């Protein structure tokens, strides 16, 4: 659990982060969204003390982060930045081994961990262990960057616009991977982005920042239905907020009992996708079908539309 208490950062006369308090639950993904200059990156960097706060404090599982030297704290926290920041002179395996080496792990343990992570990120160890970063594609480099951050099994992973440099298709895949990996390793993720879609897709909690202040911190659905501030409403998109709301709910969650002769949809599909399917096919309802072929229920257009209202 990360507790941010009255955190403020001033540079000269300018207040970049202004009295921000929030609590990040363990094993969750929290997205911090804001325009550039909103102070979101500074807030993130105060968690691992790359930026020292002017006032306020950060607790990690109840312990003040200033209780130990900053470099020791950072070895316990994964950190991923935009453009991955891989060391160009070190091989993929050496890059991933950075923190375990700093922590003085045994060579055999490091090797096993590197191999495990390469496999998790679908990079063949034989092919990629000894490759240099510039020999990889952008998407592969990004995955190595995340693998490197996770190498020493940190409980917390901080990500600063981690997918900003990727093209849309690879980006979607990387977001998918992050969700899988968070479920697999169960670490607490704090992710900074300027992309509200990304925040809604990844974050179980979303923090909206503007001008250094935290405007609202809540579940995505609450941000859409009860924006605390006109800025939050603008950020979340007034025009298509109903559609965004639908994209937060899966077919499995919304399925109701009853027969349907409409198209089959997976329970993991979002209501937005199901609605689009129904519009396209002209059907009135869809069948929600599990991977094993059993029917979970149906979704009528009316039931979907009801979910799109606050």
């Amino acid at each position, binding site marked *: 659990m990360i507790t941010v208490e009255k955190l403020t950062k001033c540079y000269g006369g300018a207040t970049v982060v202004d009295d921000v308090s929030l609590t990040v639950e363990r094993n969750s993904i929290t997205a911090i969204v804001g325009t550039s200059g909103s102070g979101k990156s500074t807030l993130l960097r105060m968690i691992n003390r790359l930026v020292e706060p002017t006032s306020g404090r950060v607790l990690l599982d109840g312990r003040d982060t200033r209780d130990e030297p900053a470099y020791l704290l950072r070895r316990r926290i994964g950190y991923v930045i935009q453009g991955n*920041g891989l060391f160009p002179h070190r091989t993929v395996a050496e890059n991933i081994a950075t923190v375990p080496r700093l922590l003085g792990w045994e060579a055999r343990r490091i090797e096993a961990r590197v191999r495990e992570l390469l496999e998790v990120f679908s990079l063949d160890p034989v092919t990629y262990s000894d490759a240099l970063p510039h020999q990889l594609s952008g998407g592969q480099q990004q995955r190595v*960057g995340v693998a490197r951050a996770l190498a020493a099994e940190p409980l917390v992973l901080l990500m600063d616009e981690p997918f900003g440099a990727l093209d849309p298709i690879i980006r979607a895949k990387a977001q998918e991977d992050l969700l899988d990996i968070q479920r697999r390793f169960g670490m607490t993720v704090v992710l900074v982005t300027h992309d509200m879609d990304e925040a809604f897709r990844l974050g179980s909690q979303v923090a909206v920042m503007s001008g250094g202040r935290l405007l609202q911190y809540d579940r995505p659905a609450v941000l859409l239905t009860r924006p605390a501030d006109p800025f939050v409403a603008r950020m979340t998109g007034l025009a298509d907020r109903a559609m965004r709301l639908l994209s937060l709910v899966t077919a499995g969650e919304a399925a109701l009992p009853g027969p349907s002769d409409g198209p089959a949809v997976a329970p993991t599909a979002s209501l937005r996708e199901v609605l689009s399917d129904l519009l396209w096919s002209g059907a009135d309802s869809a069948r929600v079908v599990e991977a094993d072929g059993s029917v979970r229920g149906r979704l009528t257009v009316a039931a979907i539309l009801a979910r799109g209202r606050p």
Partner: protein
Amino acid sequence: MSGAALAVDGGRLTRVDPLGVVLVSAGALALAFMPFVLFKANRIVPGDPRTLAQVLPAWAGLGCAAVLVAAAVVALWVANARVRLAVALLGVIAVALAAAAAGDALTPAGDKVVRVSPGGAFWVLSVCLGLLATDATTRLKPGPALRVLFLAAALGGVSVALSHGTFDHLSVMREYAVNSVRFAHEARQHLKLAFGSLAAAVVAGLPLGVLCHRSPRLRPGILATLNVIETIPAIALFGILMAPLGALAAAVPLADRLGIRGIGAAPAVVALFLYSLLPIVANTVTGLKRVSRAAVEAAHGMGMTGWQVLTKVELILALPVILTGVRVVLVQNIGMVTVAALIGGGGLGAFVFQGIGQTAIDLVLLGAIPIVTLAFSAALVLDALVEVLDRVKA
């Protein structure tokens, strides 16, 4: 040669190599109108010019001529770089051996007074063949390892020939025979001064460069000061240093006993050190600036200490650029140490200035040839090193 080309192959004149035309014409003119060697009855009298044909035994003359004609033909019409390189090297060897043979032929057995020095034709031919070899090498684009290997082979070949006594009857080697003990001493002194001031400059320049990189406020001042030092002529800097170092020696007897005086090696080392600082500091700053900010940020973010970030990431990634500065300094120092001889600093420059004083050009060459060879070798080796490092991290 080029006239024949016109007659025989006028329709395809464009295929004649332009560099070849220049080199072959220069070589042919030199052979026709300049002496290949100069014969002197003793060290002081003016030389008596002899052409290649006059000095060589018939078989050797024919052999040398055959190699030179082959080199000329290849230089003019053969585009294959390997062939051009091979023929140029053969030519250099032939010309060197011809000079050695001329020395042997013109020196009566047991004579130690007669001097045979290479003449204009020798030098022009060597330069032409050298340029042909350089041009061919550039076209071949050999890798760094191959270049160093090539240098080692060339130096090895020359040392074998020297120790075998091949060139013993040439005047430069005559001077060497007379000065061999001093030569070894001055050569060592030369290397000590050049590498010593380089080492001092690296030890002082690296931290200064890091400081400039970290503190944009100090950077302009430091770099401007070093720039001003760089513009002071070497002789003037020696002069400027004489007063304070002399005063230091007078005031502190220990300094005097350590050899820190107004003249000698101390002002030379200090001056070379000062000249060396700018390239080292400037290249360290440039190299560090070139390091990816994301990599440095990530290094901090993963929990490296400040020292680890500097030594394991920043300096390693800046190394090729820093080494380029080292290369500049080393080549510059090897050349500038020569001037140190003027203030009693020693080094191979001692032969150069002594030779100038005695108008003994052979003595000048005894100092100058090793200096040029050293500078050339240092440049080649460090260039290769930079290329290897750059390729690893590119």
